């Protein structure tokens, strides 16, 4: 991997050059929170942000997306609107890049999702390193660093950004800037290490995920699930804001007065009562507690069986989006806690 550095004062210049590769999107402030948005001017970008309300997944798997248009006589014609739009996402945190890498695996495999993949191909990612706040636990989830999935990744090492070049496109971006980027020397390598060390110590939240799948199995009947079930509002907020929740629903509609129509997919959540309801009226997860259990179980245990790691990246979004303060970290802590059997 190519590693270079960019003097901080040249970042603006870099941003203006890089626009030739696509529409620039970055976190901007919205009443004190942040959202990824198309930039109207570079000065709107907020690269030192905590977390965006929605993760970058909205670019790859939009909340609502027409998959097909249907016309009698023509059948289902794929909708390709917006699929080849070139976008540069500037300022994606490591955990979010990690999450995209996870989605990549879900939408690949034997049946590749061409909509996701087309967007993924056309959206460049320039990552940026960050410092954890009190809700971040990406380090525990092993997602505080990424080594692929981005085109460029910037580390703030003081006067410079140290830049990891991840792809040929990233390299093209570097080259397009002429000689803005410089090689790194030993001093910067030390700066990087120092920063890495500081970041590690800055985490305030820590959870242990080793052998968590086993503990989940053992605690499958735990009363924690009933308690959570009583609290959970089934509002779906956690799933919407999660960078790795990808459940979707599909619905067909017709146009007024014709048999033509379209097929749309839209974000769904396993916390909704309809999620596991089938035509016969049977609901495999009818109770709210079984649903919230499923969410945790699938992220922290099911995904491990399938893909070798939990799908949670520890971004902390669901913790801050839950109106009734359901907190993954606390739930995992409680599941891990050793309790005196006699007091149960």
């Amino acid at each position, binding site marked *: 991997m190519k590693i270079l550095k960019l003097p901080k004062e040249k970042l603006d210049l870099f941003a203006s050059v890089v626009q030739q590769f696509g529409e620039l999107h970055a976190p901007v402030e919205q009443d*004190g929170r942040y959202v990824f948005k198309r930039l109207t001017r570079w000065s709107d970008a907020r690269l030192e942000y905590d977390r965006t*309300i929605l993760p970058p997944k909205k670019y790859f798997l939009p909340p609502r997306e027409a998959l097909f248009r249907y016309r009698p006589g023509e059948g289902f014609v794929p909708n390709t609107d917006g699929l080849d739009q070139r976008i540069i996402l500037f300022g994606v945190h490591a955990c979010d890049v990690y999450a995209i890498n996870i989605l990549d695996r879900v939408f690949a495999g034997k049946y590749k999702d061409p909509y996701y993949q087309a967007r993924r191909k056309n959206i460049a990612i320039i990552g940026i390193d960050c410092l954890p706040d009190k809700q971040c636990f990406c380090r525990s989830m092993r997602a505080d660093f990424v080594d692929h999935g981005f085109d460029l990744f910037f580390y703030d090492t003081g006067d410079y950004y140290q830049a990891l070049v991840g792809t040929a496109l990233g390299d093209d971006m570097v080259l397009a800037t002429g000689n803005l980027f410089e090689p790194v020397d030993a001093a910067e390598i030390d700066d990087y290490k120092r920063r890495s060390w500081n970041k590690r110590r800055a985490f305030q939240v820590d959870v242990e995920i080793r052998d968590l799948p086993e503990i989940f199995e053992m605690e499958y009947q735990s009363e924690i699930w009933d308690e959570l079930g009583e609290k959970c*509002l089934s509002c779906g907020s956690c799933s*919407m804001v999660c960078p790795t929740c990808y459940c979707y629903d599909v619905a067909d509609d017709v146009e007024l007065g014709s048999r033509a129509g379209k097929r749309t997919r839209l974000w769904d959540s396993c916390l*909704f009562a309809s999620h596991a309801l089938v035509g016969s009226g049977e609901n495999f997860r009818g109770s709210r507690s079984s649903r919230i259990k499923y969410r945790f179980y699938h992220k922290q245990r099911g995904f491990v069986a399938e893909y070798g790691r939990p799908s949670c990246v520890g971004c902390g979004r669901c913790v801050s989006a839950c109106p*009734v303060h359901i907190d993954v970290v606390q739930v995992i802590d409680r599941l891990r806690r050793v309790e005196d059997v006699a007091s149960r």
Partner: protein
Amino acid sequence: MSKPTVGIFGLTGCAGDQLVILNCEDQLLDLVSLIDIRDFLMASSENNQDCQLDLALVEGAVLSNRDAETLRAIRKRSKLLVALGTCAVWGGVAAMNRGADRDADRDALLEEVYGDIGRGYDSTPAQALHEVVPVDFNITGCPIEKEHFLAAVASLLNGDLPLYPEYPVCTECRMRENNCLLIERGLLCCGPITVGGCDARCPDLRVPCVGCRGPAGDANAGSLVAVMEEMGFSRPQLAARLRTFAPGGVA
């Protein structure tokens, strides 16, 4: 295939859902060419008040014996009866105090407002349509969303029942990437227990949801109230707020 016969009716309400139909400016002429509107008092002075209807769209709540009779007559002549709007589906604002002592004494209330004459008025506590006659399906909202109405007609013309979201306003609010008013600003937002479909219209404008669409299918009002009490709201205040549009919806 002959066009389905349709009647559009208003019981007691603000006529907002009928107005939404008239607000489909771009589709109105298509609409009237696809369906045979036989009875629509708000828009036409030539109405057939007896014919059989394939579809009756009824807005408003039942607030008088006269309303109840009208509704029964509509039910009798219609194959499908659709409740249009929160008043028809849940009772709406007129029903907010239902069950409370004050509302029970209707005559006293009428007198309070109209004086002695009030006692003679034909007036009953507000009821949703389904409390009086069987209803085939609901299009909720105060008022209904235009798109839902058009989609419903399109589906019905195709022979399908329409599909509506059952998830709460929060889901769409999050999809639109709004700052959460409840969590971040401590405002009393009914989004978590109100059924979605409005695309989180109010929170998107930084105005808390007042629950105008009625409760979500799986509303967990108890848990929301508990959290809001921790935030410093009083239980009666919360109960009153949550019942503004749908007294029967949340306990």
